[in-house]
């Protein structure tokens, strides 16, 4: 006979106010088999609630507990810790989710009560069949992998390395820096982006604890928290960074000219190039797609002129393996393609551009040295229309969410434009101005008051060309007037979307994404810098659109989580995993093929399949595939499931 206690939480009125009465739940629980005590309490998760639980476990000598309360994702751990300190094995406790999956979703108190009793009843069955388990101890590899070296990845890597641990930093582009390196000035202070960014980039290059792979991507990641193995695909650079002096002779003789993607195609570069002067690593790189040909060698001029002999054509792609204990995802965002917004004339009219394009124009080190010139005829535009929410907040056709950074960067753009072209006039069409950051509202007011930026609350219907100018038709919903502006240039504040690399990694790593495709955090409020998958942490725009201060804060948050993980002597692995009854195993090996983690192995000598405990993630796929019923799962056996189903569906008791 087990001695089970059922503790039902009122959760204030969240449960108590939505059932017929707490007494009905307690009375029903008291009659359940092997239940020796049933109690209710206003907040089980409170200190007194937990103390009550501990006291009752000791008083009744309980060897099984059901807490009927909120989702197990919230407090299962709380109650298991309490159970352990009362001397009961924590795996003998389970949570009946009667709030999220019952009282919050059913307004009829009678039906909610009936359903809550069934949920409690089936959880009692699970506990009746549960046995004592102990977490498996696993070692920790104290090295971190940071994927993406924009400002978020850089900050996370620097913080972790300052904590004394090694960091493997992987960046797909030739230089680190990400989008922030492309920006001209930053809101709300108008700091020059490069000036505040490059010290950090240089620090990465000099830091002995950071191993940087540029021109590289993670192509495989196996293992589990504390013990990952990463395969990194290192594209050949053809230039040895240890020999390259960045003299630029190679670039000067290269006959190939292609658009420079760092400048959004506003300038050109050679096939052998350095993306921008402050690039880290400060090494020339050979773009094999643009090069006239390496195999067979067509040109070979760059090698001829390279005095330090840094160039070698016979390099091949390499796969490097690294062992790490934690992974930070900092793969950033892409701008939503302008092609998607036909009504604003992109593609038809060269003077319709996006924000990043303008950033490069405004940048002092950019292709126009900070002068604003319109793309079609390189004249200085005298009237510029900025259109906000281009692709954002349009659930029917584009992105449903607010891209968060556009209100402020458009304000900055309008302001910087006015600083560069004092006799020009910036206009902004907006839906709402969201200026909720520190000093952001003041920045927006400054744009209106000091720089004369004219704001229209409304959307633009269409943009068309007339007499060499862009006619912008919109409405000002505050005055109810139609607005028609003959503009020289139109700048679209495109929505931010998850980067292609974010999408690829989520697919590869099987990490959850939210409805908008950004990486899903473990809890939207309380666990914002980690994934629900253990060992993965989130930084920057991979998790959702955010500005630089927020990206940096989140990156430091993720880094501190990694440091906390590395500070542990060993990690614990959930013991609710698969096991084999070797007497029943017929040695068919189906389970070996089914397991996605290589946790199922066949013991040739004994002729039976086994489970490698620390590799098993407890999904249960092998149990269902086992034809002889030899495999089962600790505390989720088929016998437990059978009785849970029976009480969940049946009226009568077991």
């Amino acid at each position, binding site marked *: 006979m087990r001695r089970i206690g059922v503790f039902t939480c009122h959760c204030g009125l969240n449960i108590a106010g939505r059932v017929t009465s707490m007494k009905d739940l307690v009375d029903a629980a008291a009659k359940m088999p092997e239940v020796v005590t049933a109690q209710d309490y206003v907040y089980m998760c409170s200190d007194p609630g937990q103390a009550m639980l501990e006291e009752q476990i000791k008083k009744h000598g309980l060897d099984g507990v059901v807490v009927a309360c909120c989702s197990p*994702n919230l407090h299962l751990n709380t109650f298991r810790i309490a159970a352990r300190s009362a001397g009961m094995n924590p795996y003998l406790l389970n949570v009946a989710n009667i709030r999220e999956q019952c009282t919050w979703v059913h307004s009829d108190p009678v039906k909610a009560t009936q359903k809550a009793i069934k949920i409690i009843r089936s959880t009692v069955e699970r506990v009746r069949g549960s046995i004592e388990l102990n977490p498996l101890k696993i070692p920790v590899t104290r090295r971190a992998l940071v994927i993406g070296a924009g400002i978020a990845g850089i900050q996370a890597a620097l913080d972790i390395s300052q904590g004394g641990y090694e960091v493997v930093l992987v960046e797909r582009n030739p230089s680190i820096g990400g989008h922030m390196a492309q920006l001209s000035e930053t809101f709300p202070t108008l700091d020059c982006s490069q000036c505040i960014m490059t010290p950090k980039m240089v620090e990465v290059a000099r830091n002995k604890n950071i191993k940087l792979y540029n021109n590289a991507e993670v192509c495989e990641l196996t293992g589990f928290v504390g013990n990952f193995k990463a395969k990194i695909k290192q594209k050949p650079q053809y230039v040895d960074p240890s020999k390259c002096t960045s003299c630029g002779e190679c670039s000067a003789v290269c006959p190939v000219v292609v658009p420079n993607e760092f400048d959004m195609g506003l300038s050109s570069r050679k096939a052998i190039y350095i993306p921008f002067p402050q690039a880290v690593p400060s090494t020339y790189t050979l773009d094999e797609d643009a090069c006239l040909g390496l195999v067979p060698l067509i040109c070979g001029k760059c090698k001829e002129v390279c005095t330090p002999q840094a160039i070698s054509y016979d390099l091949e792609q390499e796969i490097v393996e690294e062992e790490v204990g934690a992974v930070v995802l900092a793969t950033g965002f892409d701008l939503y393609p302008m092609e998607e917004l036909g009504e604003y004339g992109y593609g038809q009219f060269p003077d319709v551009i996006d924000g990043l394009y303008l950033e490069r124009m405004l940048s002092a080190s950019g292709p126009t040295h900070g002068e604003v010139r319109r793309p079609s005829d390189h004249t200085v535009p005298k009237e510029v229309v900025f259109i906000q929410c281009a692709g954002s907040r349009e659930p029917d056709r584009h992105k449903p969410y607010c891209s968060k950074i556009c209100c402020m960067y458009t304000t900055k753009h309008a302001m910087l434009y006015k600083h560069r072209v004092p006799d020009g006039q910036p206009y902004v069409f907006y839906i709402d101005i969201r200026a909720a950051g520190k000093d952001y509202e003041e920045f927006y007011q400054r744009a209106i008051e000091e720089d004369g930026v004219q704001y229209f609350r409304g959307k633009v219907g269409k943009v068309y060309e007339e007499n060499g100018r862009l006619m912008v038709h919109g409405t000002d919903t505050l005055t109810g007037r139609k607005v028609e502006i003959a503009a020289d240039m139109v700048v679209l504040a495109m929505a931010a979307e998850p980067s292609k690399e974010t999408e690829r990694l989520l697919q590869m790593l099987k990490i959850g994404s939210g409805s908008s495709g950004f990486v899903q955090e473990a809890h939207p409020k309380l666990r914002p810098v980690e994934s629900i998958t253990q060992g993965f942490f989130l930084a920057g725009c991979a998790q959702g659109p955010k500005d630089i201060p927020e990206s940096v804060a989140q990156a430091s948050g993720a880094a501190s989580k990694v440091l906390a993980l590395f500070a542990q002597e060993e990690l614990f692995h959930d013991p609710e995993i698969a096991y084999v009854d070797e007497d029943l195993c017929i040695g068919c090996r189906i389970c070996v093929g089914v397991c996605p983690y290589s946790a199922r192995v066949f013991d040739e000598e004994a002729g039976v399949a086994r489970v490698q405990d620390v590799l098993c993630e407890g999904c249960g796929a092998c149990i269902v595939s086992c034809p002889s019923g030899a495999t089962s799962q600790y505390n989720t056996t088929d016998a437990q*499931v059978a009785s849970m189903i029976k009480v969940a569906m049946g009226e009568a008791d077991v």
Partner: protein
Amino acid sequence: MFEPQIMCFLCKWCTSAGADLAGTSRMEYSPSGVNLTFMCSSRVDPQHILWAFENGADGVLIGGCHPGDCHYQTGNYKTLARFVLLKNMMRQMGWEEERLRLEWISAAEGRKFVQVMNEFTDQIRSLGPLARHHSGDGNGKED
């Protein structure tokens, strides 16, 4: 009016989390289902489904992660294969195959969980109670 009973087998990572989100967002739906959460939909054994029907379920819902999103990489594909086979078997047993439903519902799709529960309840209600072939003792374990 006939009130159907639905057994819902949900994976922890996606559909159960989606059901939690429906709760957190205070959405309302039919109380016809009782949820049983597994680590993965691939832990749902076809036997479990038959046990549910034997023991009083008029409909069974399996909820897993969207294809490509399975927390355990490919668990939901295994579920899909088993589901198709089981539907065949249900036909052979003379049960309406619509009584078994598989849905991919992510952790962000609280609204979809609500829609599925309401739709499925209406569908089962229009089918009426499941005609069981034998009374049995229904503990399922001898199956």
